[in-house]
């Protein structure tokens, strides 16, 4: 029975993030529009967009190969699997043990790897720009993310996300500089990885600075829909991760019962909303930076992560 509940919870979480992610995007857009004193589209607009894209036919470039057609599915499923491993409203997921934080980072890396390849596949210049810059950003963002992972796992003694969350929830770690630094690092990485301002601008095309949108420029129809969905999933994943690790309050423990689950769900939704709101505020308040400033931005994240680890040693040995 417990097993079945665990499986159910796991399945529900997977579907939940899938269902919620366009909403999150819509929410962020709405908030941004409001902050700019526009009315903005409905928060449900992303769902409509997805539906429209899914029903359209695909136009493939003549030079596109089989890889180009496979990549959207690959990217989507890799991100989805990664997202499924991040606890949202309840910890102790059924398949938690299949992959830990490092594996989640690497799964996202897989998605990016293939997306970048797809960007090169058609042989048009914009795809190349996108891929090249995406990999440049990733080459700094990924280590920074891993540094954050190191801080957490050195603190909690595990790289298992549920256990980390559990540890932070129960053991009363208290406020730690290292954690703060790790959170900053993760935030910066999240901005970069999701192509948000100031690293990238998800709302524009045809800017010399664009990264993610350039990479997927040749996609259309259902392929584009999958990629957009994967992007939305990724944003949700990062926000969930931030929520799960740094604000684990309200998260249900394994087999905690329906009320706890419900409470956890509400808490999770609230956290996502707050996160989305803050993201929108941050994006509105800041200007897009030049591409070759990005390395400084991300390098800072890497250094913050490393500093977090070192400070951890100091505070531990005191």
């Amino acid at each position, binding site marked *: 029975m417990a097993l079945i509940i665990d499986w159910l919870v796991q399945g529900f979480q997977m579907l939940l993030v899938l269902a919620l992610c366009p909403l999150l995007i819509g929410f962020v857009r709405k908030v941004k529009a409001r902050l700019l004193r526009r009315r903005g589209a409905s928060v449900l607009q992303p769902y409509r967009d997805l539906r429209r894209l899914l*029903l359209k*036919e*695909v*136009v493939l*470039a*003549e*030079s*596109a*190969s*089989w890889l180009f057609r496979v990549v959207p*599915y690959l990217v*989507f*499923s890799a991100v989805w*699997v990664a997202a*499924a491993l991040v606890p949202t409203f309840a910890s102790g997921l059924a*398949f938690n*043990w*299949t*992959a*830990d934080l*490092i*594996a989640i980072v690497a*799964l996202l*890396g*897989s998605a*990016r*790897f293939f997306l*970048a390849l797809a960007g*090169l*596949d058609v*042989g*048009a210049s914009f795809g*190349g720009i996108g*891929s*090249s810059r995406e*990999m*440049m950003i*990733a*080459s700094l963002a*990924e*280590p920074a993310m*891993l*540094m954050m992972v*190191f801080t957490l*796992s050195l603190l909690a*003694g*595990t*790289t*298992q996300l549920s256990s980390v969350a559990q540890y932070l929830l129960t053991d009363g770690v208290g406020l730690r500089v290292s954690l703060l630094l790790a959170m900053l690092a993760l935030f910066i990485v999240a901005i970069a990885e999701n192509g948000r301002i100031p690293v990238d601008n998800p709302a524009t095309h045809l800017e010399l600075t664009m990264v993610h949108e350039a990479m997927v420029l040749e996609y259309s129809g*259902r392929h584009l*829909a*999958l990629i957009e969905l994967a992007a939305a999933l990724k944003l949700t994943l990062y926000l969930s991760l931030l929520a799960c690790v740094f604000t684990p309050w309200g998260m249900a423990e394994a087999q905690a019962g329906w009320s706890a689950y419900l409470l956890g769900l509400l808490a999770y939704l609230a956290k996502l909303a707050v996160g989305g709101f803050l993201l929108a505020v941050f994006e509105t308040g800041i200007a897009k930076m030049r591409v*070759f400033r990005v*390395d400084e931005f991300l390098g800072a994240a*890497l250094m913050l992560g*490393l500093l977090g*680890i*070192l400070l951890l*040693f100091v505070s*531990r040995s005191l």
Partner: protein
Amino acid sequence: MPLYWFLGPLAGLLGVGCYALVGSRRPRSDAIVYGISFLCSVLALGASLTHLLTAPAASTLTLPLGLPWSGVHLRVDALSAFFLVIVNLGGAVTSWYGLGHGRHEQAPERVLPFFPAFLAAMNLVLLADDAFTFLLTWEFMSLMSWALVMAHHRQAGNAHAGYVYLLMAGMGTMALLLAFGVLAGADGGYHFADMRAGLLSQQAAALVLVLTLVGAGSKAGLFPLHVWLPLAHPAAPSHVSALMSGVMTKVAVYGFMRIVFDLLGEPAWWWGAVVLALGAVTAVLGVLYALMQHDLKRLLAYHTVENIGIIFIGLGLALAFQANYLNDGAALALSAALFHVFNHSLFKSLLFLGSGSVLSATGERDMERLGGLIHRMPWTALAFLIGSAAISALPPLNGFVSEWLTFQAILISPELPQWLLKFLVPAVGAALALSAALAGACFVKAFGITFLGRPRTPAAAQAEETDTRSLTALFVLAALCVLAGILPGLVIDALAPVVASLNGAVRLAAQASQPWLTLVPLAEAKNSYNGMLVLLFIVFSGFLSALLIHRLASRDARRGSAWDCGFPDDNPAGQYTAGSFAQPIRRMFGSVVFQARERVDMPAPGDLRPARMTVSLRDPAWDYGYLPLIQVVNTVAGRLNHLQFLTVRRYLTLVFSALILLLLGLAIWR
């Protein structure tokens, strides 16, 4: 007894090498040579696998050859059996590949005699149980591979490559000679058993470590001793490159492990720090070098440097743990290193073989002149893609598992008491993470520019898919990459005897009994990974989404010209190139590490010259290490050379001075 199982294949390899000395110009001689090499490798592979899996006691054999008073000692134990598996697996696959690929060889008489001899030499290094045999075969291995590097001696640069290679190999051998000198003592206890039994002072042991790092490290490609590697590996015929990069560097790792972990006794804690630091520097610089390359095979060769760095990070961790009697941690680190050894031999061989197919199909190694090969060579592309993903440490493939294990070993570093290590290990972790991320970029570039996009030259446009034998070899390796990635527990269990033999009988817990074949190196609460489930999930959700979308939404597709924001450009030169792909990273890292300078030559309006951008890179290892050294040698040689042009009178003066000096010495000495 099982040693005899190796002697047969070895004799076969050497015999067929001798046959090729005289018969390599005959028709079908390549089939004979590669066929017999393949058979011998498979036999030896079987023998070594059996030894590794059944883990019997070490078996020894002494042949009345070599040094007269000791003879040639051979021995196979868990460590050598593991590396024998790698060597013979590589040997079997490359021989099979050679069966197909060998037809393209223009100078078979320069390849066929040395190829089996090279395989035999690598086997012999692993079997050697005394210093003499070890070094004899070690240097013989260098010599044979040098001969293979020189096979295409008329191509520009290959002579330089061969020269640098053999010289560095000679230097490495000298360092090992000195190391064995210390281990053997003045009375010449060259047998490894004597060395194991001998006790060395701290200083002597440290000396051995440093010398071994130089000796084995130069062969493996540790920074800054790697300079020969990116020159020599690409110069050889591709299947030999695969052997050199995928297998011979592992033999070097074996040499390091044999001496440092087996013969040298208990390590001091700072050994780990030295090895770790070297490994980290090597890993990061190796991948940065690789990113700057346009030559596909050279890129792969530089990437070997990176992977060697990763392996040495694992070994350094193991040393640090062992020095502090944390043998569980050491077991983890050792397993990670050995796993990576195995992985790298798989995917690097795969990639080099793939590049060989590209080379023989197009005649090009320069990525800027390739492109679009996925259309003409879909199978090669698929295998190369799997290799690229594996080497970029993407789950669920094998490269990720060994990196994951290394990370796990890094994460238990707080148990280390020394402060230097406490601080060093996370920094090494950052370096490892950085190099992993850069590796991803590097292989997006390698695969993307070579196989994707549109062909940049007619040669690339008219490439033909390679032959089936070569493809089989590629897919065997690709399949092994996938298998090792989804069933890592089995590999870890196979490695366990090796780890136990080097680590005071401490090994990782048996993995095969874990539910769902999950990899749980320490405890489930700490960390676990299941590549098989990850693969299943991805495949499942991928198929599910595809199915749903095709059923419920649209499944129409139409071909049209590329959108490219409305300005499609038919000229394939307008695509992103290898150089432009690497430009952001070059700007980020290259300007510091390689003093990268971009120079744009923009003609004035009205001038019809094409605009050009040139990039200049400086190699710090050459600039600060080797070039000054060469300068010194040349200067001294030039100065001394005046002595060739003296008059007889001045020569007599030399004799006279020597005489007076000695007489004075004698007078004073008394």
